[in-house]
C-alpha cells in the first residue's frame, strides 16, 4: 500500500459527515477520529518500539485535565491548555518510563497499568481539581478560542480531523525515518540494535514522549466535546484497553492498523450504546475481546495482516497466469 491508499482514507473520512448529516453518525465519526488517533499515538511506542503500554489513558486524562482546569479556573483557552497538556504528558511519561524501561516485556506492560491507576487515584483524591466529582466545563458561546460549538458537531469533527491528519503524518514520517527503523530494531532485538550503534533507552524515551504528547492532545478535544470530565472517565482502564484492542485488531506496528481497528470497533461501541443504552455497556468490549481472540489465533498481524496476505496471494496468481 502506497501513499494513495492513505490519501484516499483521508478524503473519505473528511467527506463522510458532510454526506451523511445524521447527528448520531457525526458523533460516531468524531469518536472514530479520536480513537483512531489514540491508536496511532499508542502505536508509536508499542507497535514500533515494542514497549507495550496498558496505561495510555493516563496521558489522555492529563491532556483532558490540563486544558479543563486551566479554562475552568483561569479562563485560559483550551488550545493553550492542549499544548501545555501535551508538554506535561511528555514530561510525566519520561518520569514514569525512565525507571520502567529497565523492565523487559510483560513487566513493563504491567508497570504502565499500575502507574496509570495510581495517577487516576491521585486525581480522585485531589480536591483542587474537584476530585471524584469531576469538572463541568463552563459553557460559553460558540467560539473557536474556547473550543466550544453548540450548534453543530462539524467544528469538533474538523478539529478531530486535523489532529488525526497530524498524528497519522507524524507516525508515518517516524516510520520512514531513521527513528522508525531504530524503534523497530529495538522491538526485534535489543542486543542487535545496540550492536548497530543504537541507544535503546534514548529512542524508547523519545518514542514514549511523542506518543504520550500526541495522546494528550486528544484528551483536550474529548473534554471540550463532552464538556464534562471526571477521573473515572478519562483515566479509565477501559480507554487504555480500547486503544490497545483496536490497534491490535487492525494490526500492530502499521499505520493503517489503528485506522482499520477504530473503523470497526468505534461504530460498534457507539451504536451498541445508542441501541442498548445502559444495559449495552460492556457488550462492545465483549465483542472486541472475541474478535481479538480470533485475530490472535488466526492472524497475529491483525486485519492488515489478512489484507496483506490476500494481496500476496492475488499477486502470486497473477504471476502464474502471466507465466
Amino acid at each position, binding site marked *: 500500500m502506497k501513499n494513495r491508499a492513505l490519501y484516499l482514507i483521508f478524503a473519505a473520512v473528511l467527506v463522510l459527515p458532510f454526506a451523511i448529516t445524521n447527528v448520531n453518525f457525526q458523533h460516531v465519526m468524531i469518536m472514530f477520529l479520536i480513537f483512531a488517533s489514540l491508536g496511532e499515538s499508542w502505536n508509536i511506542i508499542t507497535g514500533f518500539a515494542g514497549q507495550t503500554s496498558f496505561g495510555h489513558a493516563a496521558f489522555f486524562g492529563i491532556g483532558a485535565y490540563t486544558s479543563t482546569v486551566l479554562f475552568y479556573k483561569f479562563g485560559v483557552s483550551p488550545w493553550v491548555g492542549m499544548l501545555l497538556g501535551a508538554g506535561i504528558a511528555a514530561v510525566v511519561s519520561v518520569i514514569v518510563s525512565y525507571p520502567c524501561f529497565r523492565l523487559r516485556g510483560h513487566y513493563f506492560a504491567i508497570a504502565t497499568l499500575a502507574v496509570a491507576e495510581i495517577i487516576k487515584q491521585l486525581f480522585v483524591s485531589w480536591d483542587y481539581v474537584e476530585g471524584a466529582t469531576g469538572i463541568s466545563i463552563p459553557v460559553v458561546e460558540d467560539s473557536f478560542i474556547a473550543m466550544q460549538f453548540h450548534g453543530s458537531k462539524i467544528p469538533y469533527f474538523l478539529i478531530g480531523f486535523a489532529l488525526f491528519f497530524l498524528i497519522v503524518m507524524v507516525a508515518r514520517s517516524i516510520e520512514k525515518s531513521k527513528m522508525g527503523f*531504530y524503534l*523497530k*530494531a529495538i*522491538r526485534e*532485538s535489543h542486543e*542487535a540494535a*545496540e*550492536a548497530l*550503534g543504537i541507544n535503546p533507552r534514548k529512542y524508547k524515551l523519545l518514542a514514549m514522549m511523542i506518543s504520550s504528547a500526541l495522546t494528550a492532545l486528544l484528551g483536550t478535544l474529548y473534554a471540550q466535546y463532552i464538556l464534562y470530565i471526571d477521573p473515572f472517565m478519562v483515566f479509565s482502564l477501559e480507554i487504555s484497553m480500547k486503544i490497545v484492542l483496536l490497534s491490535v485488531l487492525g494490526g500492530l506496528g502499521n499505520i493503517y492498523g489503528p485506522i482499520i481497528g477504530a473503523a470497526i470497533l468505534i461504530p460498534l461501541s457507539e451504536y451498541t450504546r445508542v441501541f442498548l443504552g445502559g444495559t449495552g455497556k460492556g457488550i462492545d468490549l465483549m465483542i472486541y475481546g472475541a474478535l481479538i481472540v480470533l485475530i490472535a489465533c488466526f492472524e497475529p498481524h491483525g486485519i492488515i495482516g489478512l489484507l496483506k496476505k490476500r494481496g500476496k496471494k492475488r499477486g502470486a496468481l497473477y504471476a502464474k497466469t502471466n507465466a
Partner: protein
Amino acid sequence: MPKPMLEAKNLTMKFGNLTASNNVSFSVDKGEIVSLIGPNGAGKTTIFNCISGFYKPFSGRVYFEGKDITGLSPYKITSMGLTRTFQIVKPLKEMTVKENILTGAFLRASSRSEAEKIADEILKITHLSEKKDVLAGSLTTADKKRLEIARVLATKPKMIMLDEAMAGLNQTETKEAMELCLNLNKQHGITLLIVEHVMEAIMPISNRVIVLNAGEKIAEGSPEEIVNNEEVIKAYLGERYHAKSKQTNRRV
C-alpha cells in the same frame, strides 16, 4: 611501534563462582585477521561480550585505537567503529533484509537516501540483493548468518568481531563466507577477529590464531604453529583433527 587496533589486557569475567575468562590478554593489529578458537565453553563469546560492552569485565581493560573502552555501552563502541555479530543470530525478523541493513546504515548516513545507497552497496557485496525484500525471519540459516554480517557492515566499522559466522553452514556456504571475510579484509580494509570452530575454513585465512581453553589463553601464533602446538592439540584439536590429518596422510 604503532598502537594495536584492539588490545585486551588481563580480562577476567566471572559468573558467580565460575570464571569464564581468566586474565586473558591479546591484541589485534590494524588490517589483521585473527582467529580466536577453543573448545565449547572456553569463554570465546564471553570475551566478545566483554570487549563489545555487553558485559562489564570483572577486571582488566579494553583499548580500541588506544582509547579505553572498558565498560562503555555497546552502542558507543559501535559508533567508534568496533562492532560484532552474534553466535545465536539476531535477525530483525519482522523487517526485510534491506530494512535490516538500512537500520545499520543510518549510523553513518545523514539522510534516508544516503542510507539507501549504503544499503544497496552492501546488498551487492554480501550477495543478498535478490533477497532484499524477504522478511529476515524467513531466511535460511546461511542467509541469516550472512545478514548478520551485512547489517554490521552497514555501520561502516573499522573492525568486526565475528562469532561463529560459519557454524551450521554447508561446504559451499562456508567457502562463500570465507571469501566474504577475505574480501572485507583485503578490499575494504576491515580488521577481523573471528571466533570459529570450522578449522578448515579459518586456518587458511588467519594471520594469527589465539587459543582459549577453560577461560585461559593457552597459545598464540601463526596457523602452522597452532596446528602443531602440543598443548593445543591436547586441549582442543584433540582426536578429531588429529584423526583427520592422519587420514589425509594415509590417503596421500
